[in-house]
């Protein structure tokens, strides 16, 4: 062990503030250098001064209880405060990342009438099999799915022949927030000649179709 390691090890174990630790290190180094100048070897000096534990215990026994308590409190705070910060951040992050739904009337991004109109238009385009218009108003990930095959697949889960659309039912919608993503999700029941279908349609902030589900 060299002198600096020895002194640093002692300072780490002494229960006092950083300023005093620095002072202790400086003084111990000074003593060691003086002894070395007098011809003593480091091993002899360390054996005279005591082990790291002995010398640190000596300091701690003579440091006031008040200062030791302050040291322990500061050390605990140094651990507790980052833990609180990390836990708070994690709670906030989980809240932020978890999808949350809000009343669309309170939304900064969506207007109920606008979403309702977009939903009705999407359904009309689907019924008319106007895939080009549907794709133009959809997010890129959705565009390749908006085709005859998908439409028939969705329709087939309910009934082979839906017949002509008769009327739109009530519309329910919410704003869905997940992280920085804001979506409008609406449900509407549509009555056809042979079936009643409930569409769940999702739109992004630019009112592009981002999801479609029929039951």
């Amino acid at each position, binding site marked *: 062990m060299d002198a600096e390691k020895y002194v640093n090890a002692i300072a780490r174990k002494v229960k006092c503030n950083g300023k005093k630790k620095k002072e202790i290190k400086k003084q111990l180094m*000074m003593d060691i250098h*003086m*002894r070395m*100048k007098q011809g003593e070897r480091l091993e002899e000096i360390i054996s005279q*001064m*005591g082990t790291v534990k002995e010398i*640190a215990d000596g300091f701690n026994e*003579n440091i006031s209880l008040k200062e030791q308590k302050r040291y322990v409190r500061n050390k605990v705070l140094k651990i507790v405060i980052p833990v609180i910060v990390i836990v708070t951040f994690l709670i906030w992050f989980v809240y932020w990342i978890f999808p949350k739904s809000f009343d669309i009337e309170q939304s900064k991004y969506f207007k109920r009438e606008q979403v309702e109109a977009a939903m009705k238009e999407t359904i009309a385009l689907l019924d008319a099999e106007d895939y080009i218009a549907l794709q133009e108003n959809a997010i890129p990930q959705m565009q390749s799915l908006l085709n005859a095959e998908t439409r028939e697949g969705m329709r087939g889960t309910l009934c082979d022949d839906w017949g002509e659309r008769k009327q739109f039912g009530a519309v329910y919608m919410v704003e869905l927030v997940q992280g920085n993503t804001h979506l409008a999700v609406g449900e509407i029941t549509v009555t056809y000649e042979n079936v009643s279908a409930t569409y769940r349609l999702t739109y992004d902030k630019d009112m592009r179709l981002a999801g479609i589900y029929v039951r």
Partner: protein
Amino acid sequence: MNDKYERQMKKGVLDMLVLRLLKSEPKYGYQIIQELKEKSEETFLLKDGTLYPILYRLEDDKLVVSKWSEAEGKQVPRKYYEITEAGQKALDEILAVWKRISDGISKIMED
């Protein structure tokens, strides 16, 4: 067992001895350790971990002041401790207490 009593008795007089050594002139830590050892004929073999906290406490109580010396040539910088006026006064008071206790102990022991 003896160790325990010896340690306790020594602990009670260390402040007084350190102040007494500083009365003549300012001294640095290692010098105090050496003087205590020599003058007490090795009765007081103080370690750094014992002396420095005493000096820090005396300094906090304004009984001593400290000053780092400038390093000259190859000389290691030293921290000198000097007794203050309040320290001199405290030393006189401690010595008076010590004398009273010492006399009291002697009277009991002589019985």
